[in-house]
């Protein structure tokens, strides 16, 4: 529960929704000092504030794990459901039927989504539920003190666990082959890119997967580990620089855009993501290309970041259901209970 009402106290920094950044904050984080997850929470706050989205229009979801604790640390004024390990997708799927005008923001982890929750992860992709699905990916289980997760690379060694013998799961590839309509990867140590991708994801009408490599400072931050800051900084290979432009023109294109080929990706609400391609001709609407660059990155041990794939043509889940305009959770007995004379019709239908 927030202690702050909107407009409480005069602030110079009020956005178009009439809210200050404080209105987007959450409780103080209880995660480890320096955890990448905290940086992501901050970018969620900033992105929503800058996009003038009212917190009441967002619903937060999470599963179980360090990452899943983080929805407490942003958007105090949004409803939130910290669900079961690996089961965030089903909770979100049902909850967003309550009011289809709302947008989901889910935070999960690599254990939560790539191990115990792999089934639900893939099924929420194919259902195209209208939410941002963030995977704070560190390759390790934190709350149970340092076991390998399914995204840990083969050969990684951890204290107590020895060497990981198995091939890793690639969140973005799994999302893509499950027909996700928005797939992106970023690195917690690159807050600007995280924020721009978050804004694009929030504008996407459907499931938007953000695989954010978010090193675990306590259990997996060895120099040579794929999910470490050092490795991440050295190996990050941005697919393109990215800028997000809101549907209205208030936010201007940032002027430090480098020269080079520029591609605009229009999102459903009229906003645009502008990609500056590093790789000439990369087309994020092409699934084949997306898979190809991911394969390439894997074989070169690059950490490929940016918007890998987007498809704005597919309807989201609730719109398939042709629901009434009013949110379902505002309907009353008059809308929901058939009229008394219908009982005779029903009895007549029986033999």
């Amino acid at each position, binding site marked *: 529960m927030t202690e702050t009402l909107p407009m409480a106290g005069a602030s110079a920094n009020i956005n178009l929704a009439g809210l200050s950044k404080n209105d987007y904050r959450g409780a103080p984080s209880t995660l480890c000092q320096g955890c990448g997850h905290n940086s992501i929470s901050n970018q969620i706050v900033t992105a929503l504030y800058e996009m003038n989205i009212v917190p009441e229009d967002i619903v937060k979801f999470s599963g179980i794990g360090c990452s899943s604790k983080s929805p407490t640390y942003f958007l105090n004024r949004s*409803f939130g459901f910290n669900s079961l390990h690996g089961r965030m997708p089903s*909770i979100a799927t049902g909850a967003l039927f309550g009011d289809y005008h709302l947008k989901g923001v889910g935070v999960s982890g690599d254990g939560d989504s790539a191990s115990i929750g792999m089934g639900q992860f893939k099924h929420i992709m194919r259902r195209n539920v209208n939410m941002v699905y963030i995977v704070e990916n560190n390759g390790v289980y934190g709350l149970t003190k340092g076991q390998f997760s399914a995204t840990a690379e083969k050969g990684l060694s951890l204290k107590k666990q020895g060497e990981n013998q198995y091939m890793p799961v690639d969140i973005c590839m799994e999302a893509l082959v499950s027909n996700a309509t928005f797939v992106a990867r970023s690195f917690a140590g690159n807050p600007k890119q995280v924020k721009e991708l978050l804004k694009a994801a929030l504008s996407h009408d459907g499931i938007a997967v953000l695989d954010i490599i978010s090193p675990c400072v306590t259990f997996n931050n060895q120099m040579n580990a794929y999910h470490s800051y050092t490795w991440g900084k050295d190996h990050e290979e941005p697919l393109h620089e990215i800028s997000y432009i809101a549907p209205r023109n208030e936010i201007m294109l940032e002027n430090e855009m480098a020269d080079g080929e520029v591609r605009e990706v229009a999102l459903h609400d009229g906003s645009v993501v502008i990609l500056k391609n590093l790789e000439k001709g990369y087309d994020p609407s092409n699934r084949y290309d997306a898979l190809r660059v991911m394969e390439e990155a894997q074989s070169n041990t690059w950490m490929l970041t940016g918007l890998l794939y987007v498809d704005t043509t597919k309807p989201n889940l609730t719109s398939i259901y042709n629901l009434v305009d009013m949110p379902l959770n505002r309907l009353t*007995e008059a809308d929901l209970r058939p009229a008394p004379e219908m009982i005779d019709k029903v009895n007549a239908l029986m033999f």
Partner: protein
Amino acid sequence: MNKIINDFSITVGTVNGSGSSTANNTILRAIFKMGIPVSGKNLFPSNIQGLPTWYTIRANKDGFIAHNERRDIVIAMNPNSFARDLASVAPGGAFFYADDIKQPITRTDVAAYPMPVKTIIRNDPNVPSDYRDHVANMVYVGVLAHMIGMDIDKIYAALEFHFKKKQKPIDMNFNVVKAGAEWAKANLEKKDAFYLEPMNKTDGMIMADGNMAGALGSIFGGVQFVGWYPITPATSLAESLNDYLPQLRKREDGKHTYAVVQAEDELAALGMSIGAGWAGLRAMTSTSGPGLSLMTEFAGLAYYAEVPVVIWDVQRIGPSTGLPTRTSQGDLTFTHFIGHGDSQSVILLPGDVYECFEFGWKAFDVAERIQTPVFVLSDLDMGMNQWISKPFKYPDTPMDRGKILLESDLEELKGNWGRYFDADGDGIGHRTFPGNKHPMSSYFTRGTGHDDHARYSEEADVYLNNMDRLKRKHETAKQYVPAPVFHTMKGAKAGIIAYGSTEAAILEAQHQLEKDHGLATDFMRIRALPFTREVDTFLAKYDQIFIVEMNRDGQMAQILMTEYPQLAPRFKTIAYGDGMPASAKWVREGILAKYKGRKAASAKRKTAKKAAPARKLSAKNTTKKNAAGSKSKTKRK
């Protein structure tokens, strides 16, 4: 030979997947339309095609239509079960068989009737060759109709209903029925005693299965979200929702006020439903035992997070490869204790198709009032078989959405509220849901470990406080769940407790115990957990209480023993579960075997005395009911 009228069973043995269900339902419906109380039970294997399967019909003028082990008329269409079917006929019974099965008739104490099924079908030019096997079953309908006096017009009405008034299949099937009847008239001589005669005992009644009734009840309860996953015997509940929602919740703008999502598994099915319930929708799922196991973690979460959701469990036997197509009451203790840590479940126990409808809508009221998962335990027998029923009744109370705060309420409270704060002393907090635009409306939902304002806390006193409130809330639930139903007798010496689909068997056993053994009983059918005050009162009345149920260990008895430990010595478990629907025989025999105490000896003497005048009465034909009942009884013995 004395006629036996409107009091016998018909069992049809066929090959699974041979299309006999149309024929069997036609017989059932025709007898129902003749005004005779009747039941039909499909005893089928877990198989799509090939294994033997049976369908039993019981017509009984006194309304005793529980499953009956006795096989009066048997129709054998399956060579693989022929010998077994012939052996199963009661002495004096009738045996109809397809004459292409060339197996010996080894019995002389039954009336055997060959039926030229294949010949009749081949001689009908209107039956295309690829329909022959299915329509062939109509031959036995026709032969039987002639032999026992089943009204041919009622058969037509049944076919008209089955084929939704599509003339072509109606004619094709009805012509074969007629051909069968005509052949029987010309060629068979009646050698058995079984006859149907029209009555008026089903006037104004309907026929439906419990899954459809549950679905319809849910629709009248305003269901808005259904997450489900296919599992026998619950599948047809969700499918009925899919069938009837578009008709019953049709709007002029063509838009929908509901969503039905087939999930990837039962975990997701309940997860979605809990998400929807949390977001303010009337949400439900339907499953059976194995699916409920998968839902356990979510059910526990919903208990602690206090999310309203309705979970139907259409019970079957055992795990995946148990007896998945056989009925059971084996999930009661599991449902009672479902979850983790301390938990208590609210469980509704419908006893027939009528209550499946009623509890269908009521379950949402209870779930939203108490803010907890409500389990509705049905079973395969109730869920998948056709039962006669009073017509469904429109809900007699308005929807109870429980304690909800909207923007205007929060405005009034100046945002001063706590999700888990017990403002009314009944253990139930107020809830808000997503989409509420008041800046103080939101809260963060997690399992346990939260204070009155849903803030994270691992403090011991906060936890204890919350757990005490949950217990208080469960106590409150007693005011909202359905009270038991009683069937009492004058001078009852013992109590009987049961629940669910066994009622018909128990009423029959109660009647037999009084008539043949002088043992009058009072019967209480429990319809919900937690137990209401009526249960306390009933338990206090009797020295001996028989708790009857369809499982091995006596699960209701176990729960009663833990809830009422001081009364435990009175409880006698009559538990039996072999996959067949309950019959009066095992209820009666079970009770007689365990009935003890001071009155046992005198009860036996009374039996003899009481039984004698009963026969005298019947001879004088004073009361129709007793007369016919004991007549057929005497005859059979």
